[in-house]
């Protein structure tokens, strides 16, 4: 039927600087569709949702990558999402992991990526045993030759993901409640 194609496909470009829900990771991952009850609830915080997407760009695909290329960052992001039990978000990031695809699986032995062993154990600890992180963990990276600027970059990546994972998890819970 010719009318089907146009129906319900009107985009809301223009809102949030030309982004629609499918461009916004937290909304698309939580399954928040335009015109839904939940979409109306969150619309008053459109600025925050838009800035969260800009933050994703800044930690996943920054212009200045330091020691962590875009594909390595995507792989670390997939790994952190998987550690948090979010397979859908892990798959979203793993799609860009390129040569580092295997590293996205926390179960993969570190043999292939020996030079990244210190980085990966730091990532895993900061992601999921945050309270146990100590000065020794930062010193460990420094001894492994990671610069202070790269330590901050790595922390921002893992820390942003902790935020994004929890916003998505919360929205999914709200979404289930409104169905």
């Amino acid at each position, binding site marked *: 039927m010719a009318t089907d194609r146009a129906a319900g496909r009107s985009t809301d470009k223009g809102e949030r600087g030309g982004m629609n829900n499918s461009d916004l990771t937290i909304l698309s991952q939580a399954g928040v569709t335009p015109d839904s*009850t*939940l979409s109306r*609830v*969150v619309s*008053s*915080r459109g*600025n*925050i949702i838009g*800035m*969260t997407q*800009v*933050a994703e760009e*800044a*930690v996943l695909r*920054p*212009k*200045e990558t*330091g020691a962590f290329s875009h594909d390595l960052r995507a792989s670390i992001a997939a790994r952190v999402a998987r*550690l*948090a*039990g*979010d397979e859908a978000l892990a798959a979203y990031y793993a799609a860009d992991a390129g040569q580092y695809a295997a590293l996205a699986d926390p179960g993969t032995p570190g043999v292939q990526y020996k030079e990244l062993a210190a980085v990966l154990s730091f990532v895993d600890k*900061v*992601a*999921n*045993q*945050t*309270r146990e*992180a100590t*000065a020794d*963990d*930062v*010193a460990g990276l*420094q001894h492994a030759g990671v610069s*202070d*600027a790269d*330590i*901050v*970059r790595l*922390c*921002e990546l*893992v*820390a*942003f993901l*902790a*935020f*994004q*994972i*929890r*916003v998505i*998890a*919360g*929205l999914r*819970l*709200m979404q*289930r*409640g*409104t169905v």
Partner: protein
Amino acid sequence: MTRIIHRFTRKVPEWQPRVVPVKLEEATPQQLEALKVTPSNTKVSDYVLTLAHDVESLSVRSPLFNAIMYDRGGMSREERELGALAASMVNRCVYCAAVHADRHAKLAKDETVTDELFAKGEMADLDPRNKAIFDFSRKAAEAPPSAGQEDIEALSKAGLSDEEIFDLILSSSLFGWANRLMHVLGDPVSRKETA
């Protein structure tokens, strides 16, 4: 002599970085631009100078932080601080917990809630609304997050609107981010006494 603080307190410590912060006199134009907007909007702290190592993140993080914690409407500022505090307690970010317990006490004009939380943690005796807020936020802060449908329902039952619930999700999650910077990149230390 500085002493690392390990116990939760409302007395805000100093923060001592574990890496070398960017030196203001050596900052790039982009770093200087990002340093103008900080979560506290006061002098440039060692914390913000540390984050300036990743200027692209800092540039978006500061306005995002301010929007989540301070934008008008929705959940009260006091209750957003409670979400921030719950996450900071789960992640044992003593510095973050001090700042946000102090803000909560000042906004609420009441120290009993944060006294009770620091004394008893998740066993704290709180009114139903504060309890629902604290319980959701602390479970959401666990890794992996463990908040469930029943925690959202408890928030609704305690009288929170959907807009307030979303604001709580944002403020408690934000501290999943902030705690992983502050607690990992530095130590909370006692303030130096001026001789």
